[in-house]
């Protein structure tokens, strides 16, 4: 779904650091997306089911449920399995990246990250749909 089609695509951002959450949400809203925010994995799962966003940006290390598990549960649910997921991770070992892809993530961005790059990746994924 693209912004040109009229309706604003909905992006879920789940991140437990309030500063980063606010910054990412601001950046994506400025780029024309509707952003819904979660501060832990449980809230992220609830919002995914309730709002069925067009894309989810998930921090890996979140309280209650990790980004990996949220991704896995998104993939296991018929209603949400098509939602693309970008993982935001401070863990950059090859095994961690592989674990993210095995869980079903479409892309990952490592911290420290560039907000511009994140926006471009979101645009690229949503533009393909």
């Amino acid at each position, binding site marked *: 779904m693209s912004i040109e089609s009229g309706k604003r695509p909905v992006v879920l951002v789940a991140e437990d650091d309030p*500063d980063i959450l606010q910054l990412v949400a601001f950046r994506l809203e400025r780029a024309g997306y509707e952003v819904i925010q979660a501060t832990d994995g449980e809230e992220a799962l609830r919002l995914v089911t309730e709002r069925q966003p067009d894309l989810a940006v998930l921090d890996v290390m979140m309280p209650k449920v990790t980004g990996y598990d949220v991704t896995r549960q998104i993939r296991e649910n018929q209603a949400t399995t098509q939602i693309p997921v970008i993982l935001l991770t401070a863990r950059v070992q090859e095994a961690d990246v592989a674990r993210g892809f095995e869980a079903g993530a479409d892309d990952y961005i490592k911290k420290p990250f560039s907000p511009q790059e994140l926006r471009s990746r979101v645009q690229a994924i949503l533009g393909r749909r």
Partner: protein
Amino acid sequence: MIALLLWCSLALAAAGGLGVCVLAARRTVVAWKGRRRLDAEGRLGMTAIAVVEGDAVDNACLSEADSRVLASQLRRLSGSLRGTSTERIARFFESSGLVEREIRALKSLRAWRRAKAAFALGDMGSPDAVPELLEALRDPDSAVRGAAARSLGRLRAANAVAPIVFALTERQLPVSVAGQALLTIGPDALPGLRELETAGDAEARAFAVELVGLLGEASDVGRVLERLRDSSAEVRAKAARALGRLGAEGAAEELRIALQDRIPFVRVQAAHALGAVGDRDAVEDLLEAACSDTFESARAAAHAAARLDPEAVRSATRGGNGGVHLREAVDLLEASG
């Protein structure tokens, strides 16, 4: 006597009561300050984002307290960001005079103030602080030196590589702090590390070789391979480990020779590296080492052989042959399916 005891107990009760009052008052003040800080953070959140986004921010309008809160928010953000966002944060700190203030604080007589300044300068992201942070690596206080190394890493200061490595070899920095700083500098640290691979100090060479193994690329294999013939066993062991990490298939022959090194821990690393580079020609040598070498080296050789050719290891242990290490390797193979 009774009156004296009575007075004493009264005095004790009064002192206790006063202590409780002081603690309660202190707690109230701390909670109030915390709430005020949270309020300020909420209020200034968008200002911090405006700085990161490159929007105009008039920091002259901010009170002293708000400036401090904004600075701490930006320092926190800068740790998670890179690219133009961190450059904008650095410019903000430079233009508001905070970088200069913290640089001055590096000369403070109080060690805790110098350490705090060294730490803050890394978060501010201004390259202007690099020369003073390099100097702070020689501070008499270890907390200041550690904070300076961490900040030089955060600032990706490639010219800090040699000073950090030498601070480590002179026991001025712990290995964990120096290693983390250099890994944070990332591939930009490689030119400095490559020069240090041939440094006069064996400990510096060992550290440099190890980090080249973590950060390096295929073109580093030749130089690391030369260190496999170093006079220091520590360097040879680190070189073998680095070659394994670099996946240096071309180094297999030299690694097989290193399996015969007179120092056991070099043989251990050579065996692991042969397993990592996937040299199937080494299986026979590894099987022999697994049966005849000393404990750690034999164990490493057995595991490497199992990684390269599980069937050969299984076959070597048939009929109760092969020794304990090969049998352990087979047990692990069966357990992992």
